[in-house]
């Protein structure tokens, strides 16, 4: 029986990385299109970020600075676990500051601080197919993407309005990429959708279990689906963050006592922290685009 097993930089062998990078390049060349790739079993379970981890592992270099967040926070258990994984297998510098990171791996949120050219954000994706819950068969959805046959998605939105008076999708809100491909932004709240549009950063999406990679190159047009007379509306919170006072960030609801006591705080812990300490050179901005 073997003793200590030694792993390559960032765990994956070079051949696997090459295969994944080829898929990434293809994805960048066809914004919003889901590229199949042979997913490897990783040391964490499928559904827990293996797609994002494989993408990050394939692009990570020794001089990168890595930030890992889950639900917007650096300290949630799975973010900690993944950050430790890369610290151990790649020895790269890690950070909690969005502006310092060259690669940000995220689950379910886009950081509040606008990203810059040269940054890469890697999204963890559970179900890459935006039509999946309308059409379970992959053979069918593949045809629909090839033929730009997206009527079914709009029918769903029509049904929502007919039934609820609103489009009833709160997260993983479907978008059109460069007016060609229908894409699932991953389960980020619809609040974050506008951040994807014309972002200066490279956005990569990894779905390990479903074996798909897709991408948005910098400055890609990303438009949330809607009707002219029921336009996409970003969620607005009625109160500011109880810790830093921000009025334009996504807030977590925290239950504080047994009698219904509640407070709302920024989900992006780094952003909130930054506003509270207001260190020189890191001015908090109240005005949003």
């Amino acid at each position, binding site marked *: 029986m073997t003793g200590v097993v030694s792993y390559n930089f960032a765990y994956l062998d070079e051949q696997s990385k090459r295969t994944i990078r080829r898929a990434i390049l293809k994805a960048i060349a066809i914004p919003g299109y889901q590229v199949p790739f042979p997913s*490897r079993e990783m040391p964490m379970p499928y559904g827990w970020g293996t797609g994002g981890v494989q993408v990050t592992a394939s692009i990570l270099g020794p001089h990168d600075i890595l930030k890992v967040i889950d639900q917007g926070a650096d300290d949630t258990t799975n973010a900690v676990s993944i950050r430790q994984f890369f610290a151990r297998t790649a020895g790269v510098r890690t950070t909690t500051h969005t502006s310092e990171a060259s690669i940000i791996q995220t689950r379910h949120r886009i950081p509040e601080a606008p990203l810059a050219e040269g940054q890469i954000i890697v999204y963890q994706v559970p179900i890459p197919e935006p039509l999946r819950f309308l059409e379970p068969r992959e053979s069918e959805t593949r045809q629909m993407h090839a033929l730009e046959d997206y009527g079914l998605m709009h029918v769903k939105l029509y049904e929502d309005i007919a039934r609820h008076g609103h489009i009833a999708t709160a997260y993983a809100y479907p978008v059109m990429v460069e007016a060609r491909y229908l894409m699932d932004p991953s389960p980020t709240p619809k609040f974050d959708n506008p951040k994807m549009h014309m972002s200066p950063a490279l956005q990569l999406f990894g779905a390990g279990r479903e074996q798909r990679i897709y991408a948005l190159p910098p400055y890609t047009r990303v438009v949330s689906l809607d009707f002219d007379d029921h336009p996409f509306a970003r969620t607005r919170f009625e109160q500011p963050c109880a810790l830093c006072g921000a009025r334009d960030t996504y807030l977590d609801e925290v239950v504080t006592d047994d009698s219904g006591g509640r407070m709302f705080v920024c989900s992006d812990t780094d952003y909130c922290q930054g506003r509270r300490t207001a260190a020189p050179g890191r001015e908090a901005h109240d005005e949003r685009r």
Partner: protein
Amino acid sequence: MYVAAKGGEAAIAAAHQLLARERRGDQNLPELSADQIREQLALAVNRVMGEGSLYDGDLAAVAIKQARGDLIEAIFLLRAYRATLPRLGYAEPVDTGAMRLRRRISATYKDLPGGQMLGPTFDYTHRLLDPSPAVAAPPSPQRPAQPADSSVPQVTQLLDREGLIETNAGADGDAIGDLTRTPVAFPAGRDLRLQALARADEGFLLGLAYSTQRGYGRTHPFAAEIRMGEVEVEFTPEELGFAVPLGRITLTECEMVNQFQGSATQPPQFTRGYGLAFGHAERKAMTMALLDRALRSEDLGQERVAPAQDQEFVLAHCDNVQATGFVEHLKLPHYVDFQAELALLRQLRAEWLAARGGDRKDVAARVGDGVAQ
């Protein structure tokens, strides 16, 4: 003053320690060894090798110990380890016809060349729970052990001689897919389907196979042959140009014979279902054979009426490593999306109530729209 909860890292470290402690259990009891597991829990080891897709009894035993007996967790460990191993190439197809048999039965014939050899089986045992099973003395052999150089013909060969059973076109080596190299696209060929079934969760296959026997996509199966024993694995290195034996592995093979109506161009023939598993693993081999045939229904011109016949359904959900990952991922924080749903729901409720009378504040109080105290 609320302070955001920190300490995720420390919590994880403590959880790992607790896990190690629980894994060891009562210190007064002797520690289980991987060798004991490999020898005395061999059927668990076989399952882990099969679904872990790696033939190594020692490693499978270690995985079972590390996983505290959770076989799917052990399978996951083995699969993850497999993914780190360098791949040298593909072996030559194993010749199960030349298997050194330890067990061989056929339900389609009372007696046949090679005979019915029961081997080590739970069949015909009485399931009486026995805290200390007596270790039986090895039985005196009633007939000589099968000589190493004689081959016992496969039942399907007997049927084939009369043209009664479909023959499978041999596949050119390059034409065989590899589901670990390219993701499965539907519709998938039989080669990829069999590969998926070979590593599929036994429980999932069992339920589906059972459903076919109860009318959900009936295939009229007969167990033509189940054989278990050792086969030689050979590999042809490029430099040598000829096959070199690597060693022997234990396999369980099941060939099912199923009914079929002939077509305008073909006389009626039996159709086949095939199952193959690492080690002694009959339930796996049998359910695999039943599912193989069920998934061929459309290819054989039959209507798809049941889940077991639906390859997209079966293949997308049969891998327990994927399945457990996604099911268990529900334990991960989802509060951001839940918050979005809460906001939407509160809005819809407010509008619903407002449409039925009541002022905004009153409505807000009833639906609780999260005004901080």
